[in-house]
Protein backbone atom coordinates (compact mmCIF):
# COMPACT_ATOMS: atom_id res chain seq x y z
CA UNK A 1 0.00 0.00 0.00
CA UNK A 2 1.06 3.53 -0.66
CA UNK A 3 -0.59 6.82 0.11
CA UNK A 4 -0.90 8.86 -3.09
CA UNK A 5 -1.99 12.48 -3.14
CA UNK A 6 -3.70 13.74 -6.26
CA UNK A 7 -4.12 17.49 -6.62
CA UNK A 8 -6.58 18.70 -9.22
CA UNK A 9 -6.02 21.90 -11.23
CA UNK A 10 -8.46 23.76 -8.95
CA UNK A 11 -6.39 22.68 -5.93
CA UNK A 12 -8.67 19.98 -4.56
CA UNK A 13 -6.58 17.46 -2.68
CA UNK A 14 -7.41 13.76 -2.77
CA UNK A 15 -5.42 11.44 -0.51
CA UNK A 16 -6.00 7.76 -1.20
CA UNK A 17 -4.40 4.46 -0.28
CA UNK A 18 -3.54 2.53 -3.42
CA UNK A 19 -2.61 -1.15 -3.47
CA UNK A 20 0.84 -2.18 -4.57
CA UNK A 21 0.93 -3.35 -8.16
CA UNK A 22 -1.78 -1.03 -9.37
CA UNK A 23 -0.77 2.05 -11.32
CA UNK A 24 -1.19 5.64 -10.20
CA UNK A 25 -3.73 5.95 -13.04
CA UNK A 26 -5.77 3.01 -11.71
CA UNK A 27 -5.65 4.48 -8.21
CA UNK A 28 -7.26 7.65 -9.55
CA UNK A 29 -9.88 5.90 -11.69
CA UNK A 30 -10.94 3.51 -8.92
CA UNK A 31 -11.33 6.37 -6.48
CA UNK A 32 -13.28 8.58 -8.89
CA UNK A 33 -10.65 11.30 -8.88
CA UNK A 34 -11.58 13.76 -11.62
CA UNK A 35 -9.24 14.79 -14.42
CA UNK A 36 -7.56 11.49 -15.27
CA UNK A 37 -9.42 10.16 -18.30
CA UNK A 38 -7.24 7.16 -19.22
CA UNK A 39 -9.09 6.69 -22.50
CA UNK A 40 -6.91 3.81 -23.71
CA UNK A 41 -7.07 1.96 -20.41
CA UNK A 42 -3.35 1.95 -19.63
CA UNK A 43 -1.95 1.01 -23.04
CA UNK A 44 0.32 4.06 -23.26
CA UNK A 45 -1.56 5.01 -26.39
CA UNK A 46 -3.48 8.18 -25.58
CA UNK A 47 -1.76 10.54 -23.07
CA UNK A 48 -5.01 11.27 -21.20
CA UNK A 49 -3.68 10.13 -17.79
CA UNK A 50 -0.99 12.80 -17.86
CA UNK A 51 0.15 14.14 -14.46
CA UNK A 52 2.85 16.42 -13.11
CA UNK A 53 4.96 14.67 -10.50
CA UNK A 54 5.98 16.82 -7.54
CA UNK A 55 9.58 17.87 -8.17
CA UNK A 56 11.27 16.04 -5.29
CA UNK A 57 9.52 12.81 -6.25
CA UNK A 58 10.28 12.98 -9.95
CA UNK A 59 13.73 11.40 -9.70
CA UNK A 60 12.72 8.88 -7.04
CA UNK A 61 10.11 7.02 -9.03
CA UNK A 62 11.05 4.47 -11.72
CA UNK A 63 12.18 6.15 -14.94
CA UNK A 64 10.22 6.45 -18.14
CA UNK A 65 10.44 3.55 -20.54
CA UNK A 66 10.54 3.71 -24.34
CA UNK A 67 7.49 5.29 -25.80
CA UNK A 68 6.32 7.26 -22.79
CA UNK A 69 8.23 10.40 -23.80
CA UNK A 70 6.84 10.05 -27.35
CA UNK A 71 3.33 9.84 -25.97
CA UNK A 72 3.98 12.86 -23.72
CA UNK A 73 4.58 14.89 -26.90
CA UNK A 74 0.83 14.53 -27.38
CA UNK A 75 -0.15 15.51 -23.86
CA UNK A 76 -1.83 18.76 -22.92
CA UNK A 77 0.82 21.25 -21.74
CA UNK A 78 3.60 18.83 -20.92
CA UNK A 79 6.37 20.01 -18.58
CA UNK A 80 9.72 18.59 -17.55
CA UNK A 81 8.06 16.78 -14.61
CA UNK A 82 5.32 15.24 -16.75
CA UNK A 83 4.54 11.53 -16.58
CA UNK A 84 1.82 9.22 -17.76
CA UNK A 85 0.24 7.95 -14.55
CA UNK A 86 -0.53 4.57 -16.16
CA UNK A 87 3.22 3.94 -16.26
CA UNK A 88 3.88 4.58 -12.55
CA UNK A 89 3.41 1.33 -10.65
CA UNK A 90 2.52 1.67 -6.99
CA UNK A 91 4.86 0.13 -4.39
CA UNK A 92 5.85 0.83 -0.78
CA UNK A 93 8.73 2.93 -2.12
CA UNK A 94 6.42 5.56 -3.51
CA UNK A 95 4.36 5.95 -0.34
CA UNK A 96 3.60 9.67 -0.06
CA UNK A 97 3.82 10.45 -3.78
CA UNK A 98 2.16 13.68 -4.88
CA UNK A 99 0.94 14.29 -8.41
CA UNK A 100 -0.93 17.23 -9.93
CA UNK A 101 -3.51 16.83 -12.62
CA UNK A 102 -3.48 19.25 -15.58
CA UNK A 103 -6.49 21.52 -16.20
CA UNK A 104 -7.57 19.17 -18.95
CA UNK A 105 -6.34 16.10 -20.76
CA UNK A 106 -7.05 17.11 -24.31
Amino acid at each position, binding site marked *: MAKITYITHDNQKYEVEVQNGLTVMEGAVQNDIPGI*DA*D*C*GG*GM*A*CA*TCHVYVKEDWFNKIPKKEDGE*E*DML*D*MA*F*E*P*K*TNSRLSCQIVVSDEIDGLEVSIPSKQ*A
Partner: protein
Amino acid sequence: MIKTDALIIGAGPTGLFTAHQLKLIGLNCEVVDNLDKIGGQCIELYPDKPIYDIPAVPECTGEELTNNLINQLKPFDIKFHLNERVEEVKKENENWLVKTNNGTSFSTPNVIIAGGVGSFEPRKFSPKECEKFENKSLFYSVKDKKIFKGKTVSIFGGGDSALDWAVELSKECSVNLIHRRDEFRGAQATIDKVHQLAKDRKINLYTQYQMASVKGDKNLESIDIKHDNNEIKNLKTDYVLGFFGLIMQLGPIANWGLNIDKKTIAVDTEKFETNQKGIYAVGDICNYPGKLKLILSGFHEGALAARACFKLARPNEKYRFEFTTTSTNLLKRLGKKE
Protein backbone atom coordinates in the same frame (compact mmCIF):
# COMPACT_ATOMS: atom_id res chain seq x y z
CA MET B 1 -31.43 10.14 -48.12
CA ILE B 2 -30.15 6.60 -47.62
CA LYS B 3 -32.62 4.08 -46.25
CA THR B 4 -31.08 1.20 -44.35
CA ASP B 5 -32.10 -1.44 -41.80
CA ALA B 6 -29.35 -0.38 -39.43
CA LEU B 7 -26.70 2.31 -39.23
CA ILE B 8 -23.49 1.55 -37.37
CA ILE B 9 -21.47 4.43 -35.95
CA GLY B 10 -17.84 3.35 -35.65
CA ALA B 11 -15.75 1.01 -37.81
CA GLY B 12 -13.64 -0.50 -35.04
CA PRO B 13 -13.64 -4.25 -34.34
CA THR B 14 -17.03 -4.14 -32.60
CA GLY B 15 -18.67 -2.14 -35.39
CA LEU B 16 -17.22 -4.48 -38.02
CA PHE B 17 -18.42 -7.68 -36.36
CA THR B 18 -21.82 -6.11 -35.69
CA ALA B 19 -22.06 -5.42 -39.44
CA HIS B 20 -21.21 -9.08 -40.04
CA GLN B 21 -23.98 -10.22 -37.72
CA LEU B 22 -26.55 -7.89 -39.30
CA LYS B 23 -25.74 -9.06 -42.82
CA LEU B 24 -25.71 -12.68 -41.74
CA ILE B 25 -29.27 -12.50 -40.43
CA GLY B 26 -30.38 -10.80 -43.63
CA LEU B 27 -30.44 -7.11 -42.72
CA ASN B 28 -28.61 -4.44 -44.63
CA CYS B 29 -26.45 -1.86 -42.93
CA GLU B 30 -24.15 1.10 -43.52
CA VAL B 31 -21.17 2.16 -41.43
CA VAL B 32 -19.96 5.70 -40.64
CA ASP B 33 -16.56 6.50 -39.15
CA ASN B 34 -14.75 9.78 -38.58
CA LEU B 35 -11.32 8.26 -39.31
CA ASP B 36 -10.07 7.96 -42.90
CA LYS B 37 -9.65 4.22 -42.51
CA ILE B 38 -11.40 1.15 -41.13
CA GLY B 39 -10.28 -0.30 -37.78
CA GLY B 40 -10.88 2.29 -35.05
CA GLN B 41 -8.49 2.31 -32.09
CA CYS B 42 -6.89 -0.94 -33.29
CA ILE B 43 -5.61 0.76 -36.40
CA GLU B 44 -5.14 4.30 -35.09
CA LEU B 45 -3.61 3.66 -31.66
CA TYR B 46 -1.97 0.25 -31.71
CA PRO B 47 -1.68 -1.24 -35.22
CA ASP B 48 1.60 -2.98 -34.25
CA LYS B 49 0.85 -3.93 -30.66
CA PRO B 50 0.04 -7.60 -30.16
CA ILE B 51 -3.31 -8.58 -28.63
CA TYR B 52 -3.44 -11.90 -26.75
CA ASP B 53 -7.05 -12.23 -25.62
CA ILE B 54 -9.12 -12.70 -28.76
CA PRO B 55 -10.74 -16.16 -28.43
CA ALA B 56 -9.07 -18.75 -30.68
CA VAL B 57 -6.50 -16.19 -31.85
CA PRO B 58 -3.43 -16.71 -29.63
CA GLU B 59 -1.72 -13.55 -30.84
CA CYS B 60 -2.44 -10.85 -33.40
CA THR B 61 -1.74 -7.16 -33.87
CA GLY B 62 -4.40 -4.48 -34.10
CA GLU B 63 -3.80 -4.31 -37.82
CA GLU B 64 -4.06 -8.09 -38.31
CA LEU B 65 -7.28 -8.21 -36.30
CA THR B 66 -8.74 -5.42 -38.44
CA ASN B 67 -7.71 -7.13 -41.69
CA ASN B 68 -9.23 -10.42 -40.55
CA LEU B 69 -12.49 -8.70 -39.67
CA ILE B 70 -12.54 -6.97 -43.06
CA ASN B 71 -11.94 -10.35 -44.74
CA GLN B 72 -14.81 -11.83 -42.78
CA LEU B 73 -17.05 -9.13 -44.29
CA LYS B 74 -16.03 -9.98 -47.87
CA PRO B 75 -19.16 -12.00 -48.74
CA PHE B 76 -21.27 -8.98 -47.89
CA ASP B 77 -21.90 -5.69 -49.58
CA ILE B 78 -21.49 -3.00 -46.94
CA LYS B 79 -21.11 0.69 -47.61
CA PHE B 80 -18.56 2.50 -45.44
CA HIS B 81 -18.75 6.27 -45.06
CA LEU B 82 -15.26 7.20 -43.86
CA ASN B 83 -14.06 10.69 -42.90
CA GLU B 84 -17.59 11.44 -41.78
CA ARG B 85 -18.82 12.19 -38.30
CA VAL B 86 -22.44 11.70 -37.28
CA GLU B 87 -23.66 15.04 -36.02
CA GLU B 88 -27.36 14.61 -35.48
CA VAL B 89 -29.74 11.78 -34.61
CA LYS B 90 -33.41 12.62 -34.34
CA LYS B 91 -36.70 10.81 -34.40
CA GLU B 92 -38.82 11.12 -37.54
CA ASN B 93 -42.05 9.12 -37.38
CA GLU B 94 -40.99 5.54 -36.64
CA ASN B 95 -37.43 5.98 -37.88
CA TRP B 96 -34.26 7.74 -36.84
CA LEU B 97 -33.02 10.49 -39.10
CA VAL B 98 -29.22 10.61 -38.97
CA LYS B 99 -27.05 13.35 -40.47
CA THR B 100 -23.29 13.53 -40.87
CA ASN B 101 -21.00 16.56 -41.07
CA ASN B 102 -20.63 15.94 -44.83
CA GLY B 103 -24.36 16.23 -45.36
CA THR B 104 -25.04 12.51 -45.83
CA SER B 105 -28.36 11.55 -44.28
CA PHE B 106 -29.85 8.21 -43.35
CA SER B 107 -33.30 7.03 -42.40
CA THR B 108 -33.24 3.87 -40.32
CA PRO B 109 -35.17 2.13 -37.54
CA ASN B 110 -31.88 1.11 -35.87
CA VAL B 111 -28.78 3.07 -34.89
CA ILE B 112 -25.94 1.11 -33.33
CA ILE B 113 -23.30 3.19 -31.60
CA ALA B 114 -19.99 1.32 -31.65
CA GLY B 115 -18.02 4.44 -30.98
CA GLY B 116 -15.30 3.27 -28.59
CA VAL B 117 -14.23 6.27 -26.55
CA GLY B 118 -15.60 8.67 -29.13
CA SER B 119 -14.44 10.01 -32.45
CA PHE B 120 -10.83 10.82 -33.20
CA GLU B 121 -10.17 14.55 -33.45
CA PRO B 122 -6.88 16.41 -33.80
CA ARG B 123 -5.30 17.51 -30.54
CA LYS B 124 -5.20 21.26 -30.40
CA PHE B 125 -2.94 24.00 -29.06
CA SER B 126 -3.69 24.88 -25.46
CA PRO B 127 -3.79 28.71 -25.62
CA LYS B 128 -7.44 29.66 -26.03
CA GLU B 129 -6.80 32.44 -28.55
CA CYS B 130 -5.56 29.87 -31.10
CA GLU B 131 -9.20 29.08 -31.88
CA LYS B 132 -9.61 32.51 -33.43
CA PHE B 133 -7.24 31.63 -36.25
CA GLU B 134 -8.23 28.01 -36.66
CA ASN B 135 -8.80 26.98 -40.28
CA LYS B 136 -7.74 30.46 -41.41
CA SER B 137 -4.05 30.64 -40.63
CA LEU B 138 -3.73 27.87 -38.05
CA PHE B 139 -4.32 24.27 -39.10
CA TYR B 140 -4.10 20.73 -37.74
CA SER B 141 -3.79 19.15 -41.17
CA VAL B 142 -2.75 20.31 -44.62
CA LYS B 143 -5.41 20.33 -47.31
CA ASP B 144 -3.75 22.57 -49.88
CA LYS B 145 -0.03 23.18 -49.54
CA LYS B 146 -0.06 25.83 -52.30
CA ILE B 147 -1.37 28.48 -49.88
CA PHE B 148 1.96 28.36 -47.99
CA LYS B 149 4.15 29.21 -51.01
CA GLY B 150 6.58 31.99 -50.21
CA LYS B 151 5.20 32.42 -46.70
CA THR B 152 6.55 31.73 -43.23
CA VAL B 153 5.10 28.58 -41.69
CA SER B 154 5.65 27.57 -38.06
CA ILE B 155 5.23 23.83 -37.54
CA PHE B 156 4.75 22.30 -34.08
CA GLY B 157 5.28 18.66 -33.23
CA GLY B 158 7.94 15.94 -33.19
CA GLY B 159 6.43 13.04 -35.10
CA ASP B 160 6.34 12.03 -38.73
CA SER B 161 3.61 14.48 -39.78
CA ALA B 162 5.48 17.49 -38.38
CA LEU B 163 8.83 16.35 -39.80
CA ASP B 164 7.49 15.38 -43.23
CA TRP B 165 5.75 18.72 -43.66
CA ALA B 166 8.79 20.62 -42.41
CA VAL B 167 10.92 18.93 -45.08
CA GLU B 168 8.32 19.35 -47.80
CA LEU B 169 7.44 22.98 -47.08
CA SER B 170 11.09 24.01 -46.68
CA LYS B 171 11.35 23.81 -50.49
CA GLU B 172 9.08 26.80 -51.06
CA CYS B 173 8.53 28.45 -47.69
CA SER B 174 10.40 29.72 -44.71
CA VAL B 175 9.89 27.02 -42.06
CA ASN B 176 10.14 27.16 -38.28
CA LEU B 177 9.99 23.76 -36.61
CA ILE B 178 9.15 23.86 -32.92
CA HIS B 179 9.21 20.85 -30.60
CA ARG B 180 9.04 20.41 -26.83
CA ARG B 181 12.22 18.34 -26.59
CA ASP B 182 15.44 17.62 -28.51
CA GLU B 183 14.48 14.12 -29.64
CA PHE B 184 12.09 13.53 -32.49
CA ARG B 185 10.06 10.37 -32.93
CA GLY B 186 9.79 10.14 -36.72
CA ALA B 187 11.55 7.87 -39.20
CA GLN B 188 15.34 8.15 -38.74
CA ALA B 189 15.90 9.18 -42.38
CA THR B 190 13.46 12.08 -41.99
CA ILE B 191 15.01 13.15 -38.69
CA ASP B 192 18.46 13.19 -40.35
CA LYS B 193 17.06 15.24 -43.21
CA VAL B 194 15.53 17.78 -40.83
CA HIS B 195 18.86 18.19 -39.03
CA GLN B 196 20.67 18.62 -42.35
CA LEU B 197 18.13 21.24 -43.50
CA ALA B 198 18.53 23.02 -40.15
CA LYS B 199 22.30 23.07 -40.67
CA ASP B 200 21.81 24.49 -44.17
CA ARG B 201 19.50 27.13 -42.65
CA LYS B 202 16.54 25.89 -44.67
CA ILE B 203 14.62 25.10 -41.48
CA ASN B 204 14.79 27.13 -38.26
CA LEU B 205 14.76 24.57 -35.48
CA TYR B 206 13.51 25.47 -32.00
CA THR B 207 13.58 22.59 -29.53
CA GLN B 208 12.49 22.62 -25.88
CA TYR B 209 9.97 25.27 -26.91
CA GLN B 210 6.18 25.14 -26.82
CA MET B 211 3.43 27.45 -28.02
CA ALA B 212 2.81 30.27 -25.53
CA SER B 213 0.47 32.56 -27.44
CA VAL B 214 -0.60 33.76 -30.86
CA LYS B 215 -0.60 37.44 -31.79
CA GLY B 216 -2.60 39.34 -34.36
CA ASP B 217 -5.85 41.16 -34.72
CA LYS B 218 -7.62 40.01 -37.87
CA ASN B 219 -4.66 38.19 -39.34
CA LEU B 220 -2.08 36.12 -37.56
CA GLU B 221 1.08 38.19 -37.18
CA SER B 222 3.39 36.33 -34.86
CA ILE B 223 3.60 33.71 -32.15
CA ASP B 224 5.31 33.59 -28.80
CA ILE B 225 7.08 30.36 -27.99
CA LYS B 226 8.31 29.50 -24.53
CA HIS B 227 11.47 27.60 -23.64
CA ASP B 228 11.60 25.06 -20.80
CA ASN B 229 13.59 27.70 -18.89
CA ASN B 230 10.67 30.15 -19.36
CA GLU B 231 12.46 32.35 -21.92
CA ILE B 232 9.97 33.67 -24.50
CA LYS B 233 10.79 34.11 -28.16
CA ASN B 234 8.61 35.94 -30.67
CA LEU B 235 8.47 34.57 -34.21
CA LYS B 236 6.87 36.40 -37.12
CA THR B 237 4.76 33.91 -39.01
CA ASP B 238 2.00 33.75 -41.60
CA TYR B 239 0.78 30.26 -40.81
CA VAL B 240 0.88 27.79 -37.93
CA LEU B 241 0.58 24.03 -38.23
CA GLY B 242 0.10 21.77 -35.19
CA PHE B 243 0.69 18.02 -35.35
CA PHE B 244 -0.02 16.50 -31.95
CA GLY B 245 -1.80 13.35 -33.04
CA LEU B 246 -5.41 12.50 -32.40
CA ILE B 247 -7.53 12.44 -29.29
CA MET B 248 -10.83 10.67 -28.74
CA GLN B 249 -13.80 12.90 -27.99
CA LEU B 250 -17.35 11.84 -27.32
CA GLY B 251 -18.47 14.79 -29.44
CA PRO B 252 -22.06 15.08 -30.66
CA ILE B 253 -23.11 11.73 -29.10
CA ALA B 254 -23.51 13.66 -25.86
CA ASN B 255 -26.45 15.57 -27.39
CA TRP B 256 -28.68 12.68 -28.44
CA GLY B 257 -30.64 12.33 -25.23
CA LEU B 258 -28.86 9.17 -24.07
CA ASN B 259 -28.00 8.21 -20.50
CA ILE B 260 -24.32 9.04 -20.41
CA ASP B 261 -22.04 8.61 -17.42
CA LYS B 262 -18.25 8.97 -17.59
CA LYS B 263 -18.23 8.93 -21.39
CA THR B 264 -20.16 5.65 -21.55
CA ILE B 265 -23.78 4.94 -22.45
CA ALA B 266 -26.07 2.87 -20.22
CA VAL B 267 -27.66 -0.14 -21.98
CA ASP B 268 -29.65 -3.24 -21.08
CA THR B 269 -27.96 -6.60 -21.51
CA GLU B 270 -30.66 -8.25 -23.59
CA LYS B 271 -30.65 -5.95 -26.61
CA PHE B 272 -27.87 -3.53 -25.69
CA GLU B 273 -30.47 -0.86 -26.24
CA THR B 274 -30.09 2.61 -24.73
CA ASN B 275 -32.88 4.61 -23.11
CA GLN B 276 -34.00 5.45 -26.67
CA LYS B 277 -35.86 2.71 -28.56
CA GLY B 278 -33.89 1.64 -31.63
CA ILE B 279 -30.60 3.17 -30.49
CA TYR B 280 -28.09 0.63 -29.23
CA ALA B 281 -24.59 0.96 -27.83
CA VAL B 282 -21.98 -1.80 -28.09
CA GLY B 283 -18.27 -2.18 -27.38
CA ASP B 284 -16.20 0.11 -25.18
CA ILE B 285 -18.78 2.89 -25.26
CA CYS B 286 -21.56 0.91 -23.55
CA ASN B 287 -21.95 0.37 -19.85
CA TYR B 288 -23.86 -2.16 -17.75
CA PRO B 289 -23.16 -4.01 -14.50
CA GLY B 290 -20.07 -6.16 -14.99
CA LYS B 291 -19.04 -4.54 -18.29
CA LEU B 292 -15.55 -5.50 -19.46
CA LYS B 293 -13.82 -3.30 -22.03
CA LEU B 294 -12.60 -6.24 -24.07
CA ILE B 295 -12.91 -6.74 -27.81
CA LEU B 296 -14.57 -10.11 -27.20
CA SER B 297 -17.30 -8.43 -25.16
CA GLY B 298 -17.94 -6.06 -28.06
CA PHE B 299 -18.47 -9.04 -30.39
CA HIS B 300 -21.07 -10.53 -28.06
CA GLU B 301 -22.84 -7.21 -27.58
CA GLY B 302 -22.95 -6.60 -31.34
CA ALA B 303 -24.40 -10.05 -32.02
CA LEU B 304 -27.25 -9.44 -29.58
CA ALA B 305 -27.92 -5.88 -30.76
CA ALA B 306 -28.13 -7.17 -34.35
CA ARG B 307 -30.93 -9.58 -33.35
CA ALA B 308 -32.76 -6.74 -31.65
CA CYS B 309 -32.49 -4.71 -34.88
CA PHE B 310 -34.28 -7.49 -36.74
CA LYS B 311 -37.49 -6.92 -34.81
CA LEU B 312 -37.65 -3.23 -35.75
CA ALA B 313 -36.44 -3.63 -39.34
CA ARG B 314 -38.70 -6.61 -40.15
CA PRO B 315 -41.69 -6.18 -37.84
CA ASN B 316 -43.77 -8.70 -39.79
CA GLU B 317 -41.20 -11.47 -39.90
CA LYS B 318 -40.14 -13.84 -37.21
CA TYR B 319 -36.45 -14.09 -36.45
CA ARG B 320 -35.23 -17.66 -36.38
CA PHE B 321 -31.93 -18.58 -34.78
CA GLU B 322 -29.65 -20.54 -37.14
CA PHE B 323 -26.09 -21.87 -37.24
CA THR B 324 -23.64 -21.08 -40.06
CA THR B 325 -22.59 -24.75 -40.06
CA THR B 326 -26.01 -26.01 -41.11
CA SER B 327 -28.35 -23.25 -42.30
CA THR B 328 -28.86 -23.07 -46.06
CA ASN B 329 -30.03 -19.47 -45.66
CA LEU B 330 -26.89 -18.37 -43.90
CA LEU B 331 -24.60 -20.32 -46.22
CA LYS B 332 -26.23 -18.64 -49.21
CA ARG B 333 -25.66 -15.22 -47.68
CA LEU B 334 -22.05 -16.17 -47.05
CA GLY B 335 -21.69 -17.17 -50.71
CA LYS B 336 -20.94 -20.78 -49.80
CA LYS B 337 -24.02 -22.22 -51.45
CA GLU B 338 -25.88 -21.40 -54.67
